[in-house]
């Protein structure tokens, strides 16, 4: 290509205590392109962006912006040099108006005072330029996240950015909103701006990006025009392993409903909680994966929380091994050997400032009580065993868990529960927001656990994943269970129809 890169990074190395996050990585960004940055969690995507924008210092290598060697001391300095970043979480002021947010910090002034009319006029011009139908006088916080994100982009564009970095901008948007975002991105690209786009969604990358740079384990895999790279090849390059793993999962169901042991591990009868989930009958047997399908807000998480005693049920009963059991608190559920991985990894799972070791033994230690500490040798053996078994990286158990990537954090949380040898494992969105490699490993693990006789309740927003893993699928809609299908009868189309319209047995 003849155009000279607007950003050129060479031999970038960034190290953290115990981790080499980037190792001699090169990266080029051309004007007027949308460039995707791909890689598993922990590949170094965020670190690369943070090195470019001055959030992290670099230990080695050079960064050139428009041919000039630069090292930014802070994100502010990078912004002044024309590198604007829009993060996944919108970093704006929700209580100010759209116009104020767009021009915050550089409002047009008149006689020393902010010229409100000029602020509004300039913001309106800018929004019109991006074809955004947003009232500049409306308060930002009143808009959906998608609009807030577009406003953040408008703000970046107004900075006359030469480079616009979008870090997972689509993770909380629906399809229409993504379309709108892409339209704006294309406009910006056609105006000559270099757009760096980070996303987990392959479809979106192929829809919007021109070229892609792939990282793996902190190293550069390569830079490719997207037109010349098939999806399978891209995934292979990201994962660095044959995709066989994904297809292998197509196992024959080891269990027919008829063959299931008579006694379910857990049976709920009329279990419900006002405002959360209408009374539900549900049974999970040893050795089966029961999938919960439904949209966000259909009551799938709420049901899982009732089964774990995280919330109080106000109707219904639960039997464990045919014995009536009251699950008033997680402690009750754990005593009945039920385990629960929350969908909110950070808020309800990780204890960020404790080490990987402490996080792994936490639930087991809690069950033993404070006075009976696990002997150090037992702890080390168990922790080493699960770090190997789940391929947790880095392998050092003394690293703080907050320093791990999302996929590895999820594996630590799984280890925390598996170490307690549960009979029922409830997994709420265990693969959300993690890379394909870890996702495949976790899916395989679920299947293996069920084969070994564990009962698994598997919840995921990805219908395909639920159908692939489950022996039976319970479909939820509007906080009601609308159907329960054996795997053989649960086709994608049928389940989607149930989710959309509801079955005949809706209460």
């Amino acid at each position, binding site marked *: 290509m003849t155009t000279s890169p607007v950003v050129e990074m060479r031999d970038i190395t960034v190290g*953290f205590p115990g*981790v080499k996050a980037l190792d001699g990585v090169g990266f080029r960004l051309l004007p007027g392109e949308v460039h995707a940055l791909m890689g598993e969690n922990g590949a170094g995507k965020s670190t690369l962006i943070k090195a470019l924008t001055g959030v*992290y210092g670099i230990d080695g290598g050079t960064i050139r912006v428009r041919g000039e060697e630069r090292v930014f001391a802070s994100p502010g300095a990078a912004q002044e040099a024309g590198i604007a970043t829009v993060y996944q979480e919108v970093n704006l002021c929700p209580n100010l108006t759209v116009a104020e947010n767009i021009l915050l910090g550089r409002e047009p002034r008149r006689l020393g005072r902010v010229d409100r009319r000029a602020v509004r006029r300039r913001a309106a011009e800018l929004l019109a330029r991006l074809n955004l139908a947003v009232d500049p006088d409306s308060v930002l916080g009143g808009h959906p996240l998608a609009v807030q994100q577009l406003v953040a982009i408008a703000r970046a564009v107004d900075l006359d950015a030469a480079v616009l970095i979008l870090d997972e901008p689509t993770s909380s948007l629906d399809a229409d909103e993504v379309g709108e975002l892409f339209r704006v991105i294309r406009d910006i690209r056609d105006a000559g701006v270099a757009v760096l786009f980070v996303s987990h969604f392959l479809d979106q990358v192929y829809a919007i990006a021109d070229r892609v740079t792939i990282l793996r384990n902190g190293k550069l895999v390569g830079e490719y025009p997207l037109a010349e790279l098939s999806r399978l090849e891209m995934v292979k390059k990201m994962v660095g392993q044959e995709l066989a793993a994904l297809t292998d999962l197509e196992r024959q169901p080891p269990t027919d409903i008829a063959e299931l042991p008579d006694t379910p591990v857990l049976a709920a009868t009329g279990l419900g909680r006002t405002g959360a989930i209408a009374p539900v009958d549900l049974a999970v047997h040893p050795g089966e994966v029961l999938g919960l399908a439904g949209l966000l807000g259909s009551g799938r998480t709420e049901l899982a929380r009732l089964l774990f005693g*995280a919330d109080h049920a106000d109707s219904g009963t639960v039997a464990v091994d045919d014995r009536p059991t009251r699950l008033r608190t997680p*402690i009750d559920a*754990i005593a009945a050997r039920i385990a629960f991985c929350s969908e909110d990894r950070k*808020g309800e799972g990780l*204890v*960020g400032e404790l080490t990987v070791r402490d996080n792994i033994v936490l639930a087991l230690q809690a069950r033993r009580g404070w006075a009976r500490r696990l002997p150090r040798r037992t702890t080390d053996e168990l922790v080493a065993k699960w770090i190997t078994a789940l391929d947790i990286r880095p392998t050092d158990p003394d690293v703080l868990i907050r320093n791990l990537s999302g996929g590895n954090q999820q594996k630590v949380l799984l280890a925390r529960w598996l170490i307690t040898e549960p009979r029922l494992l409830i997994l709420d969105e265990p693969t959300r927001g993690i890379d394909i490699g870890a996702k495949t490993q976790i899916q395989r693990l679920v299947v293996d656990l069920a084969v070994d006789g564990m009962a698994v309740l598997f919840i995921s927003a990805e219908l395909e994943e639920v159908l692939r893993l489950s022996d039976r699928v319970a479909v939820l809609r509007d906080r009601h269970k609308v159907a329960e299908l054996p795997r053989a009868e649960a086709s994608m189309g049928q389940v989607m129809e149930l989710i959309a319209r509801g079955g005949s047995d809706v209460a």
Partner: protein
Amino acid sequence: MSPEVWRRFTASSLFWPVVALVALLVFDAVAVPGFFALRIQDGHLYGSLVDILKNGAPTAIIALGMTLVIATRGIDLSVGATVAISAAVACGWIAAAPDPTSASAAIVGMLLALGLAVVLGLWNGFLVAVLGIQPIIATLVLMTAGRGIAQLITDGQIITVANPLYAQLGGGFLLGLPVSVVLAAVLFALVGAVTRRTALGMLIEAVGINPTAARLAGIRARGITVAVYVFVAVCACLAGLMISSNVTAADANNAGLWIELDAILAVVIGGTLLTGGRYSVIGTLVGALVLQTLTTTVYTAGIPPEVTLVFKALVIIAVCLLQSPKTRALLRRTRPAPVREAVAAS
């Protein structure tokens, strides 16, 4: 010390508090002749250093309890009030006993005070863990009401006692050292051992770092929270007994006044964050010693005692600045080690 050990020591949160303590002691050694002199009289150890330990013991003991409370994301402002109530109960009982000099009167008085402290701790724990009131507000209740309760017990009088056994607690000697120093040392060793040899320390930290995750992992977070408030109340009670024994009187107005702030300071100087989570018992001990050495230094250097607070403020500012990752990075002239950032995530 090998270079590796030295590097780890300078990087630890204990480094600057220890430096502050050593600096104060060096200053004393130069400015006050005979500061380090120790003499043995009747088998008892005397000297400025012993005074520091003895006078610092009550604050150190309360700071010990406060460390665990702060580790659970809490705080207890009512310890000063508990000091006053405990002193009032014990002295009130002893003074009203048929024989105010008897050992039994002293023992029952102390047990009564301890029992009441447990009740006060349960009350704070109940407000925080069961009703879910913010700790600073919940313990403010007892902080304000507590001195009134102490006044009721003493009937507004300063109760003086002359009980030989009771006097031992604040003024006696054991193994050549003041009883209060021995008691404080035993408590620190005990808490250090119990929290680290058992899993209690880890569970307390987990509750402080992420209460929701702790609950979902099956930790009895409520029980732990109540327990630390009871423990700090018992610590405050012991401190109250020491203070009143030392002056052989219970003063409901002034016993333990503002001691909660000194205790919190000692914890913070020792490197435990007010946001909860990781804590350091040794850090708290060093913090308490820094505070007391400072106070003693100001006295012995002939500076008017009213100025002590200003010096305390200066030390606090210095220590807090030195502990902040930013200042440390500046001092080492390297980029900030992003230990607290989410690192390899992408």
